[in-house]
């Protein structure tokens, strides 16, 4: 297979977008194209556009967004497809972009992830996200993603002894990182004592889905992110010769049962483990080689559980590593330097691409105050459903 890498990245500020959906999508795309130096019109070299989004049609009332983007960006007649894989839509779009180039079908692919979540009310948004649950076995009983995360957290608490405070520790860390990320939705520090003190915890950090509290889960955000992929053997010919090439070294994806209750060990995230193993094998690296990671912390429990499933820590010890500061910016295994979904925000379809944008910035040494020194290899885990479809991606500059 051909080597595939990233030569351009773009990222809108997550939060409540003031732009119409299509303009927001194109803003991220143009930033990535500008970053790479890609041209439009008759100088366009992009063969294919993939847009990862879970609900552009359902929430933003725009279907066929990839076709619209190609025309708006003036890069016709590039091929265009919209990719839907729940909250893992973004990473799936990157995977397909990788495959398109690695196979030899394309030389240059623009991948965008985007979601407009705040066009609807909070409960409509929660319902929209819940449509990815099993319609008969879960959704019709009123289950939502926060409800599942609450159940999962309780299981982990019972099995591994982690406490509510551990979730808050992860949250505080990610808020601190987001304060150093201009693209983050929430750029406000959070003090651990203020969200854990029993005297006022119910007012500062109220219960949402027992045992989860407000600071144990991500906000609802709009946003878009984009990457420009090229074949290494065509990089110079396409006009990207002077651009830093961040190689996609490994991609893995795996699925699990749709109905969570059907899982053999419901406290495990099997698809995370399998997708990470696949990505490690393809990249020829292991957990010890990862300098920086973006893990899908839609709920803080997921950052802890994923950090174990990808092999950073033993099962049941992720929360201890977080307590010890090992996952902080200055720790031995920095996780979610961008602020994570918790504070950077989680516009579903954008998240997988956004995670990769953060890794590119880290590996290029362009992450500013949140830069991990000498970062060479990074891992992103984008989690779909409640873990029934996960995509892991490894980037490297080695």
């Amino acid at each position: 297979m051909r080597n595939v890498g990233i030569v351009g990245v773009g990222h809108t500020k997550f939060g409540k977008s003031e732009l119409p959906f299509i303009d927001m999508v194109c803003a991220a795309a143009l930033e990535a194209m500008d970053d790479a130096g890609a041209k439009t019109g008759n100088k366009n070299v992009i063969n294919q556009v993939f847009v990862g989004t879970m609900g552009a049609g359902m929430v933003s009332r725009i279907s066929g967004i990839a076709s619209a983007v190609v025309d708006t960006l003036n890069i016709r007649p590039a091929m265009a497809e919209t990719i839907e894989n729940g909250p893992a839509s973004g990473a799936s779009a990157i995977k397909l972009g990788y495959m398109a180039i690695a196979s030899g079908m394309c030389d240059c692919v623009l991948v965008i992830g985007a979601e407009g979540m705040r066009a609807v009310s909070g409960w409509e948004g929660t319902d929209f996200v819940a449509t990815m649950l099993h319609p008969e076995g879960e959704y019709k009983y009123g289950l939502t993603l926060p409800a599942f995360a609450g159940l999962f957290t309780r299981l982990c608490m019972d099995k591994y002894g982690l406490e509510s405070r551990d979730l808050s520790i992860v949250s505080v860390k990610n808020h601190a990182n987001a304060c150093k990320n201009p693209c983050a939705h929430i750029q406000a520090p959070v003090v651990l004592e203020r969200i854990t003190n029993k005297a006022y915890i119910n007012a500062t950090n109220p219960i949402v889905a027992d045992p989860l509290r407000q600071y144990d889960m991500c906000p609802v955000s709009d946003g878009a992110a984009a990457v420009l992929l090229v074949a290494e053997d065509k990089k110079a010919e396409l006009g990207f010769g002077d651009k830093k090439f961040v190689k996609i070294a490994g991609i893995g994806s795996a699925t699990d049962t749709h109905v969570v209750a059907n899982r053999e060990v419901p406290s495990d995230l099997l698809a995370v483990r399998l997708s990470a193993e696949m990505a490690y094998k393809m990249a020829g690296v292991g957990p010890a080689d990862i300098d920086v990671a973006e893990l899908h912390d839609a709920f803080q429990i997921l950052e802890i559980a994923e950090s174990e499933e990808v092999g950073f820590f033993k099962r049941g010890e992720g929360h201890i590593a977080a307590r010890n500061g090992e996952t902080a910016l200055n720790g031995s295994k920095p996780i979610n330097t961008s602020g994570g979904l918790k504070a950077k925000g989680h516009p579903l379809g954008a998240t997988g691409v956004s995670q990769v944008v953060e890794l590119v910035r880290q590996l290029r040494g362009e992450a500013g105050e949140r830069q991990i020194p000498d970062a060479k290899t990074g891992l992103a885990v984008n989690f779909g459903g409640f873990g029934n479809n996960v995509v892991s991606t490894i980037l490297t500059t080695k």
Partner: protein
Amino acid sequence: MGIIIDEMEGKLRPPSIGLKPYDAKVIPLTTGEDMLVREITYDEIPLLMETIEPLMKQPKDFYDIVASRIYAELLGMYRYRVQDEYCFVGAVDGEIAGIVNGRMVNEKVGMSYHTMTLKRGARVGAQLFAAKMEYHFDFMNQDEVWIVAESPNGFKRWMIEYELESRPQCPHELGGVPTFVLTRALWEKHKANKNVGIRPAFEEVIEANKVLHKPAKISV
């Protein structure tokens, strides 16, 4: 002549049931800052009006209508044209973080006017709303407070979180919007989780918020 003007002014001013003082309290914010919630003084009203004036043209999250109405309510208070109106401010190091106001309909019924957050993302509005309900029930010893919402955020925060009783036949002053009611029973049910604060307020926090000032920049 002066006496005549005073007599006329007296006729224009509403009667009062007599407002009790609200004891200032300190609310710990998630950011690590301490917010003082206290009554405003008469002399501070113009500063508050000046603070919210730019928001009267900010349509985002219905700030325009809320700011315009608070402006008018504060002016009414300043000119002594609203019966038993009160206004509290939440402030951090003297910087205005939020404003809440309301008035008494009679001794047993209160009317909530508005809650406005100038420092978003730290649950300032939720805390200030709880403080004003505390004033109606625990200081003024009222039986119920009439409430309406002008934004989806307000509806979620008050109507849903406090499980307010729907009573559309009640004539709330804010535009005839269907009224919801926080009864004493609902207040007693929710106040332990909603209403926090440290009393007596720390001296240094009181001192830091003696003189109020506008936020350098208001991002809503």
